[in-house]
């Protein structure tokens, strides 16, 4: 395959690539106009940073088949470095404008990638996963050992409004920081997409699928993994630098297990088999985190269960589900599926609300929040200590399961009937085009498979 030619497309459309990229750029520029200042803008900024982080993580997971439990190490250490760099720049010792700090963060991330990657990428597969876990624990434990660099328990705080504005840009307002993030998001996305088209990116897929064969045609799998990890750590460093600029402080949790786990969850939920998967995952993940954590204390549980359901029933993630339903949506026969689809959704919603109600009632019981024992759902008041409420919830769950079991075979039948007779022009378009070739995790999104529930 000649360099610069990509078999996968960014989006399942027939639009030329330049249009897609221009659309992405325009969306980034226009987004704050829709969200307004304040909470919406902070959501957008966080989504942007998580997108870069997720895309860099997916270089390892989706494209390289390397499951890392410690990717936050690179973003976190990059963030620490940038916090110190900002402080030095504030003291006049470092003549680098804030706008270019992410580049420095990327360099820091790559440096740590060179250092740690040498150890972690010696092995692939499960051992790689465990070494990254150990490394993450090591770095996390070190944050308390070296308070000079890590700032101990409190972390390192910094200030992004330093010196005189360079090119008239200072970062006193949130909107300026958003555009800084958007700029680096666009640059990083383009760079990481370009990476998938480079010979290294292509051979990385080969190493993922069959290391022995890659080795026998003259590539060293260990070296390919190492180089990829360095680059991926660099992009993680960029996202870490942006978070240091955005939050103006870095603490030990930024290198911790929770952060590494979150990006794994988001990426898989979005769909690790697709280039845009982590971006979808970032949007869903940040929205889930921010919205759910406002509403309920059990949000970790919901995210975890959602993740397990995705792994179990939809290995292609949300992107996989969307892509799988595109040919059906476009086929014109969608009306024959629609009733069953709606019935399925209704059953799932019933089960979902019953499960959520029971979880919340249990939380009320065990954490003894005496002030809020009553829940209001669809005009019905549920009380954690009343048997009637529990029976109603269990009844809802049971009827949801019953409807689901009754409807599922008919839904699958209708779905496969439509899928097997698509209009010929659309067949190639969406399914294979944005999928990264031959990834085991996405095989089940091919037609005829029964993993969709």
């Amino acid at each position, binding site marked *: 395959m000649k360099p610069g030619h990509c078999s996968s497309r960014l989006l399942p459309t027939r639009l030329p690539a330049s249009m897609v990229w221009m659309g992405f750029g325009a969306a980034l520029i226009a987004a704050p106009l829709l969200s307004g200042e304040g909470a919406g803008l902070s959501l957008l900024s966080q989504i942007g940073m998580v997108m870069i982080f997720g895309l860099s993580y997916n270089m390892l997971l989706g494209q390289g088949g390397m499951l890392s439990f410690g990717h936050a190490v690179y973003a976190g250490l990059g963030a620490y470095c940038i916090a110190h760099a900002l402080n030095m720049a504030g003291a006049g010792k470092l003549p680098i404008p804030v706008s270019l700090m992410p580049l420095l963060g990327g360099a820091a991330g790559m440096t740590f990638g060179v250092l740690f990657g040498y150890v972690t990428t010696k092995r692939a597969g499960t051992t790689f996963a465990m070494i990254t876990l150990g490394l993450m624990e090591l770095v996390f434990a070190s944050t308390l050992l070296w308070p000079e660099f890590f700032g101990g328990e409190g972390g390192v705080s910094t200030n992004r409004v330093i010196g005189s504005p360079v090119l008239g840009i200072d970062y006193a307002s949130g909107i300026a920081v958003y555009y800084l993030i958007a700029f680096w998001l666009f640059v990083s996305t383009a760079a990481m997409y370009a990476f998938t088209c480079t010979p290294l990116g292509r051979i990385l897929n080969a190493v993922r699928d069959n290391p022995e064969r890659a080795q026998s045609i003259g590539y060293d799998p260990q070296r390919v993994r190492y180089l990829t990890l360095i680059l991926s750590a660099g992009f993680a460093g960029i996202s870490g630098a942006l978070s240091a600029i955005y939050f103006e402080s870095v603490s030990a949790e930024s290198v911790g297990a929770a952060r590494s786990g979150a990006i794994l969850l988001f990426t898989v939920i979005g769909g690790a088999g697709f280039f845009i998967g982590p971006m979808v995952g970032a949007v869903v993940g940040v929205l889930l985190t921010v919205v759910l954590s406002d509403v309920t204390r059990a949000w970790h549980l919901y995210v975890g269960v959602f993740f397990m359901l995705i792994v179990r029933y939809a*290995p292609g993630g949300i992107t996989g589900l969307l892509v799988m339903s595109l040919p059906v949506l476009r086929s014109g026969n969608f009306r024959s599926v629609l009733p069953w689809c709606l019935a399925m959704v209704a059953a799932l919603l019933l089960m979902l609300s019953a499960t959520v109600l029971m979880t919340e009632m249990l939380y009320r019981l065990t954490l003894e929040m005496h002030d809020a024992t009553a829940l209001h759902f669809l005009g019905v008041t549920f009380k954690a200590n009343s048997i009637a409420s529990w029976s109603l919830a269990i009844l809802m769950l049971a009827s949801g399961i019953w409807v689901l079991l009754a409807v599922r075979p008919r839904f699958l039948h209708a779905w496969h009937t439509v899928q097997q007779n698509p209009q010929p022009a659309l067949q190639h378009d969406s399914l294979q085009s944005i999928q990264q070739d031959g990834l085991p995790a996405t095989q089940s999104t091919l037609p005829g498979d029964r993993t969709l529930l």
Partner: protein
Amino acid sequence: MEFALITLLNSLCYGLLLFMLSAGLTLIFSMMGVLNFAHASFYMLGAYLAYAISMWIGFWPALLMAPLVVGVLGALVERYGLRAVHRQGHMPELLLTYGLAYVIGELVQLIWGRAPVPYRIPAGLDGSLFTFYGTSFPAYRGFMMLVALLMLVAIRCLLTRSRTGLVIQAALTHPEMVEALGHDVPRIAMLVFGGGCALAGLAGVIGGNALVTEPSMGATLGSITFVVAVVGGLGSLNGAFIASLLIGLLQTVAVAIDYSLRDFLSLCGLSFSSGTDLRLHPHPFWDLTIAQMAPVLPYLLMIVLLICRPRGLMGAREG
């Protein structure tokens, strides 16, 4: 002298506890090629269930029932979760167990709250086993070691002497052949997974009251267990045993040593003066004591070992 002996016994006790966890993990890994990320969560579940059962009917029934319940739960996870994603390769399996660890951790908090629960040592074992030059060794530690050793012998006998054990051993290396001979390999995998989880549960029952039963206990011991499995060599039961004792020793001895790197160097006749008053400006690296570094040491050991010997102490070469 008595300090050394008691420390050694403590480290042996901790090492055996680690082995109870890593034995199940290693068995499951060599059988199914799956790293059970939720292994330490089953350990935690064992401790919490034992707490709940011991509140209800006492410690001794809990010692039997909690591992059984955990084992059944593990078998269910294998049957309805792992087996379904098995054909997509190992990564979805690992992801599923990762999600499971996350969910179990949350469920435990949901049911038993975020604070540690008062899961206590049974009254009959709440004394000292012996006193050695004025330092007493708790009877419960002795009981833990006894249970762990009994379990070790039981596994050994089960694997080498019983028919089931022989089939399991054969299925580890030649699953197709075993299947061709008419044995139900997926069912064996379910048994092994359930059994491994039950072992973790048993470790939780006897470890939960010796250490502390709280929602983070799984994560604390979990990553150490993975280190043990990697250091010992993935899939090697003997390696896991040696690595468990080694890391148990390393962690227990390290917290008791209050020497810094500088002290060691001056013991060797090397001394250096940095010109400033050391007590006012301790150097961040040279004045770290071994005790302070204790939590980091297993991971350092793992990394050093992986650089020198990537397949672990007794592991097979990566296939």
